[in-house]
């Protein structure tokens, strides 16, 4: 082995490469027996417990803001009957994957990263490797899968809570017609919108899990290193998720024709 080559940006490239390698590793190990069912269930429960309440609390005002914004907009152009339709579309297709992503990265990912990081500096990960057990298979795979599953479920919850929040604020505060709001639900939104929303959530969960695990397994050393790693994990995940969201949305809008067109 020679010393690694250096040029500007080499470090960032190397990190990206290693993170990608971990992603491939996790995918491969996910199909290797024995599957760590117990750890998986525990992790699901853990991720749910740290994310579910904040997600619900965030999605209510989020849905409300969208509903209010669209409500006033539709009134200006005289299309009040489409308020429900537009806000459902906005919430399901965009808002709910984003809210899910923020919470999975901010609450779930940071907890996973801190957990793995503290195990790493206590040499638990090393000990596990020396005992002939792959930490990727034993620890990382269940966590990433848990993040993915919980992300999909949370996405559903955010959609429901968001739409309900939107309904409440539109009907109570903006004097919207309850019937019109409900009746126009399916005027713009269609089933593929729900699919893309869930697919996005699945991918976001995967990315959040991988980034958290990668940063957690490679802290800079010492307790401060773990703190920094958590911080970086959250920031990196946010950047990645928003970018991936942009890409997925672009593809989706190109591939799936809008309803009625």
């Amino acid at each position, binding site marked *: *082995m*020679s*010393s690694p080559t250096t040029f500007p940006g080499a470090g960032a490239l190397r990190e990206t490469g290693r993170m990608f390698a971990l992603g491939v590793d996790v995918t491969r190990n996910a199909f290797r027996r024995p599957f760590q069912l117990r750890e998986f269930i525990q992790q699901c429960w853990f991720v749910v417990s740290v994310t579910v309440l904040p997600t619900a609390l965030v999605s209510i005002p989020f849905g409300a803001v969208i509903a209010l914004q669209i409500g006033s907009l539709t009134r200006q152009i005289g299309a009040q009957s489409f308020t429900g339709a537009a806000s459902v579309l906005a919430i399901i297709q965009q808002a709910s994957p984003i809210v899910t992503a923020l919470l999975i990265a901010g609450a779930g990912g940071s907890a996973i990263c801190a957990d793995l990081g*503290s*195990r790493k500096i*206590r*040499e*638990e990960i*090393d*000990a*596990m*490797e*020396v*005992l*002939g*057990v*792959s930490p990727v298979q034993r620890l990382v795979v269940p966590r990433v899968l848990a993040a993915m599953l919980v992300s999909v479920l949370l996405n559903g919850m955010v959609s429901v809570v968001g739409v309900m929040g939107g309904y409440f604020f539109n009907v109570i505060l903006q004097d919207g017609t309850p019937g019109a709001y409900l009746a126009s639900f399916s005027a713009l939104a269609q089933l593929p919108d729900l699919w893309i929303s869930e697919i996005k959530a699945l991918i976001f969960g995967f990315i959040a899990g991988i980034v958290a695990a990668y940063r957690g397994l490679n802290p800079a050393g010492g307790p401060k290193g773990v703190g920094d790693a958590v911080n970086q994990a959250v920031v990196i995940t946010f950047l990645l998720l928003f970018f991936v969201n942009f890409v997925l949305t672009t593809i989706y809008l190109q591939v799936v024709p809008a309803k009625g067109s």
Partner: protein
Amino acid sequence: MGVEVVVDGLTKSFGKQTIWRDVTLTLPPGEVSVMLGPSGTGKSVFLKSLVGLLKPERGRITINGTDLVRCSEHKLYEIRKLFGVLFQDGALFGSMNLFDNVAFPLREHTRKTEAEVRRIVLEKMEMVGLVGAEKKLPGEISGGMRKRAGLARALVLDPEIILCDEPDSGLDPVRTAYLSQLLIDLNSQIDATILIVTHNITVARTVPDNLGMLFRRELVMFGPREVLLTSDEPVVEQFLNGRRLGPIGMSEEKDQATMAAELAHKEAGHSDGSPDADVRGVVPQLEPTPGLPPRGAVRRRKDRVMSIIHTLPPDAQQGIIASLTPDEQRHYQVSAGVGPDTATVPDTTRHTPSPWPRQGGVL
């Protein structure tokens, strides 16, 4: 019997900083070896390299014909099942109690029933004196207990190579003595190759068959215990006696000015922190607890050392010969006071300060 570990020309650096270079030594199968060295000389890094946790830049580590530095991940996991490693702080899994920690390797790698697992785990827990603490979490017990639990976990798969990272740190002298005895007893029972990394002089003097020392990014020496224990090498002398006077400083190396100042202080009557008497010299080795089988390593090592004795420094030769019984002296055709080939030993070995530098390869 334990397996042989051959380390050849190993070099490890972190970025620009070299930790050690060109380390060459062989851990003889089934024998107990100790690696000494001041803090921060990369002893733990060496240990982690041996189990493949860190990848050295150059060199080979050969175990059972496999080069650990360059083998595939899959192969590495297979080889690691031969190892039992005791980490500095025990490295227990914080979320499991002691019983589950010790049972972990059994549950992962064997198809034993829960009853068998229980029997083996309790046996190992008793071995390290932790009966009754099975239900405790690692966070609830003292550092010494964590260390002993870590040892129990390392032993549970009957490893062929046992690596101990500072088994004595954080333990009182009495517990350290018990732990040393435990390691020797283990060696007599399962004949595993053992490497202990430490800076405890008592452990270094009484436990190992072979002794080595790392200093200034190099392996100063590695060989039969008598060689290091009788060495004139300044750094070894300073380390064994635990005094300030010598090449080892507070930071790893010492400059000439500090050295001169210290020498002046010493001459002015200021103690340099060393014990009254020079503690170098060959002391009797620990033996297995009566009732256990004799260590196979002792006989093998005797044959091995006697076959190379003429290459060792004279002081070491004397120490080795003096430790033989009259019967053995007759068997190997040597006598106390005169080495086997004293006359043929080149005179230069007698006067050069370090006739035995980094010659671990053949031992």
